[in-house]
């Protein structure tokens, strides 16, 4: 019964979606704002990667909101699991084999390096703070799975997270003082394509990289604590 009702409901929605989507051609330019960003983005922001220019510069305020959503979700995970959960403890697990431990110790710094490369070069190559932060967090996931007896300090992740969030806000407020706009790109743009270019974009993206990495690592840490 439930299945049939659900299928009928979905079929009705699907017909509506198909009717409206058949008016939207695939693969044609649809927005003028995207064309403007591509045409003028390099000149206005100094970033070669236009997606980064949109995320950090044109829609920097939006990104600040999204970082806040991420922070709220991480706080929610902590609150749900620990505040009302009562006991949360690690059980003693069998240590991993020598091969696993050695491989994990060998790969951990390399993955951190790749993550840092991705978020430092966010304005030049595909990538940026969010992707680099996710790669950094995956290094910590490997650390938890491979070197089971160790764990990262909760205070350290929280400190890194708060400080990098503060860097984002302080850069925004400095723009307010420098030119009258929140998150204004007040540093010199430099030569597009070089590492030290695009003004505040690399600074903000490195802060986002640290923030996302420490937040996701903290989430992994809290979820691992719950495995009993």
């Amino acid at each position, binding site marked *: 019964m*439930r*299945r049939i009702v*659900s299928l009928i*409901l*979905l079929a009705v*929605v*699907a017909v509506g*979606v198909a009717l409206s*989507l*058949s008016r*939207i*051609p*695939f*693969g*044609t*330019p*649809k*927005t003028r704002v*995207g*064309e403007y*960003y*591509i*045409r003028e*983005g*390099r000149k206005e922001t100094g970033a*070669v*990667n*236009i*997606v980064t*220019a*949109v*995320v950090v510069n044109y*829609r920097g305020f939006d*990104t600040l909101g*999204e970082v806040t*959503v*991420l922070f709220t*979700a*991480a706080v*929610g*995970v902590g609150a*749900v*699991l620990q505040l*009302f*959960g009562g006991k949360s403890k690690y059980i003693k697990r069998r240590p991993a084999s020598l091969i696993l431990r050695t491989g994990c110790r060998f790969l951990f710094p390399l993955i951190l390096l790749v993550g840092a490369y991705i978020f430092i070069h966010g304005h*030049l*190559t*595909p990538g*940026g703070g*969010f992707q680099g*932060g*996710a790669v950094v967090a995956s290094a910590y996931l490997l650390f938890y799975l491979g070197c089971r007896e160790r764990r990262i300090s909760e205070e350290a992740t929280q400190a890194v997270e708060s400080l990098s969030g503060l860097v984002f806000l302080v850069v925004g407020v400095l723009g307010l003082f420098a030119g009258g706009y929140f998150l204004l790109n007040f540093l010199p743009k430099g030569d*597009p394509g070089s590492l030290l270019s695009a003004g505040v974009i690399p600074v903000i993206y490195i802060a986002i990289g640290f923030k*996302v990495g420490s*937040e*996701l690592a903290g*989430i992994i840490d*809290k*979820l691992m604590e*719950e495995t009993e």
Partner: protein
Amino acid sequence: MSFISDYIYYFGAFGLIFIGLYIILVKRNLIKVIIGLSILETGVNLFLISVGYIGSGTAPIFSKPGLKASSMVDPVPQALVLTAIVIGVAVLALALSLAIRVYRHFGTLNLRKIKEQRW
């Protein structure tokens, strides 16, 4: 036939969205509902990206000289999806931790057996 081949990305995206919605509506296990939510989110992301595609366009990155601005895809949906993916991971973690709490409290993940959750 050309309707399908022209809109193949829309079909893929909405296929994922409807699979996710069906799982959310029908399945009883809370973990499976969360998996459905994740599939739904993937479909929405794919849809946003495919709306921004421009025929035979390249990534909007001037990584080497000679790339023309007119042959690049729309950067705005890519910027939106970029952040949405990471937020999706965090929301998934929040949902799973809520599922852990539900299991601790009720001793089951079956949504039909949880009295306060009957629907």
